[in-house]
């Protein structure tokens, strides 16, 4: 049984943050271990959670003030229609990318033999559907939770093969820590999951990474810091300190020279534990190069309203949320809080709150307060474009209109 693990305490301002043991919980763990929280005068208690459901519920009940969350999770908690709403505020993105779509060795083999271009996600999705049709029964795949980026990426990938693609695939929920067993027992033939599970599935020779989440949505926000809205309101200054500590941790994480130490920290039993030790023998060690996981570069931590809105529209499409407008997203995602914290550390941020998602195939620059700011590419599978606020920072929420359109062709900028 995974029990909550209260770690060391320090005098000062006490904050309780939950995390699920995954590679991208590293910003919280590193901030704790490098004393970055201490430096900000915060006494942070990290609590390890065995499931996203338990993390979410503990935040709802006030047993935790916030924590490491799947990017769509704060939207789903704050805007829920099928359960009481628990308003959560997102002041920063903790990590981008890191998910993989991994298929069983057998299914992967079938795709190779169908002479499919394995680099082209739309081609592979079509090939997968052909395999399912040939078998006459649906292929069973897994995602980690309906309100996860994994679920949305998996479904967006399948949907690129055509509107009826999902009829040929059954998507079941499996917790990340049970993914290896689910592959081994042939319960599932593929999944979309975060690290280290894709690498572990490859290392155990149970599956192959077919695609990265990056191929579905380049540099998608993967995990965010979600804090209860009432906590954020009462502790505005402390929230800024929290963002500062985590920003410093993210900056540290992007430096490959620190990854040896990172591995030693994460392998401790109170964090990810010995499960990651086998990755020492994996040629890629901690970070699989295909998954493009990163924590800081190219304004990774900036919480774009347009990205949150794109996630919300996916949740709405899947029937997990009612219609969501710009004002609702603005209550959850707060670029203003991010800018404030980042500026106090000399880190510049874009002056606009939203951009056209899907337009940029390469990193590009935007105006920051003090000069140009690097921003990561954001291409969407199928060349979708998702516009919100028309890049106009002066637009007021009630004038915002959301629209999603498909581009004929987008050019790199």
């Amino acid at each position: 049984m995974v029990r909550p693990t209260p770690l060391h305490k320090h005098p000062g301002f006490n904050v309780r943050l939950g995390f699920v043991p995954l590679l991208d919980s590293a910003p919280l763990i590193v901030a704790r271990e490098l004393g970055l929280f201490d430096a900000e005068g915060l006494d942070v208690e990290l609590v390890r959670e065995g499931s996203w459901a338990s993390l979410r519920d503990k935040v709802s009940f006030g047993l935790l003030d916030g924590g490491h969350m799947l990017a769509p999770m704060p939207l789903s908690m704050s805007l829920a229609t099928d359960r009481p709403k628990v308003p959560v505020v997102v002041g920063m993105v903790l990590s981008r990318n890191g998910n993989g779509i991994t298929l069983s060795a057998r299914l992967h083999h079938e795709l190779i033999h169908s002479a499919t271009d394995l680099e082209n996600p739309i081609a592979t999705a079509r090939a997968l559907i052909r395999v399912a049709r040939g078998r006459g029964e649906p292929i069973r795949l897994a995602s980690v939770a309906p309100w996860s980026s994994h679920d949305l990426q998996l479904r967006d990938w399948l949907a690129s093969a055509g509107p009826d693609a999902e009829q040929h695939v059954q998507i079941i929920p499996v917790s990340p820590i049970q993914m290896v067993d689910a592959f081994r027992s042939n319960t599932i033939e593929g999944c979309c999951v975060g690290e280290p599970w894709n690498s572990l599935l490859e290392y155990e020779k149970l599956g192959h990474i077919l695609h990265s989440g990056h191929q579905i949505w380049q540099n998608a926000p993967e995990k965010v810091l979600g804090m209860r809205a009432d906590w954020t309101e009462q502790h505005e200054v402390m929230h800024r300190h929290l963002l500062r500590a985590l920003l410093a941790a993210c900056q540290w994480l992007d430096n490959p020279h620190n990854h040896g130490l990172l591995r030693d920290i994460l392998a401790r039993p109170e964090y990810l534990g010995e499960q990651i030790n086998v990755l020492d023998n994996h040629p890629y060690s901690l970070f699989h190069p295909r998954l493009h996981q990163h924590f800081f570069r190219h304004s990774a931590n900036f919480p774009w309203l347009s990205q949150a809105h794109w996630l919300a529209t996916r949740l709405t499409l899947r029937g997990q949320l009612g219609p969501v407008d710009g004002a609702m997203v603005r209550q959850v995602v707060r670029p203003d809080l991010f800018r404030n914290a980042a500026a106090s550390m000399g880190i510049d941020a874009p002056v606009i709150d939203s951009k056209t998602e899907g337009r940029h195939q390469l990193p590009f620059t935007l105006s920051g307060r003090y000069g140009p700011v690097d921003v990561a590419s954001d291409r969407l599978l199928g060349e979708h474009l998702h516009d919100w606020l028309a890049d106009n920072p002066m637009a007021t929420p009630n004038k915002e209109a959301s629209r999603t359109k498909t581009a004929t062709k987008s050019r790199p900028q």
Partner: protein
Amino acid sequence: MNSPEPLRILLIDKDPERASQVCQALRHEGHEVIRQRPDATGLTAAVARDQPDMVIIDMDSPDRDTLENMSTLNTHAPRPIVFFADQPGDRATIHAAVKAGVSAYVVDGIQPDRVRSIIDSAVAQFESFQALRAELEETRSALEDRKVIEKAKGLIIRHENCDEETAYRMLRSSAMEHSERLAVMAGRVIKLLERRSQGSVGAIQKAS
């Protein structure tokens, strides 16, 4: 508050001693523990097969995600879940938990003499949740109905070259004639008119 019916319960607990205590307490209350499992492996199949009325699982269990998301897989009624946690808490926390939609939230672990009230509150909570879901479903289907009716009206207007009022009257009178719901009749009209390049009132009448 009494549980009116004995419940068929699936218990998931890694701690065998606690599980047997809970099991005993549940049986004492007249409930049936149909299965006891250490974890959620194969849970989907187990629920489909045994159709338990309730699943009881540890708050901190990693299987929570799997269990919670089963509703995405199975359209049949979701089961109430009781969570146990060993962390200390207070009444306010329990209250907040129950309000937040968790069937029941038990602090300080499970005590057999509290099982009854836990089950009762879980059932009550489950029922109010079901009512909320039903209400949502109703609203959703009302919206769906309106969309179908609007579409059928549009098709009739085009095919019959009439005004909206007339189209609606035609639709309503054929629905009444066949004692069908308006939306059902609208659906048939759409099917029929979309198949034919030319429709007529006759076609609408034959739609039943």
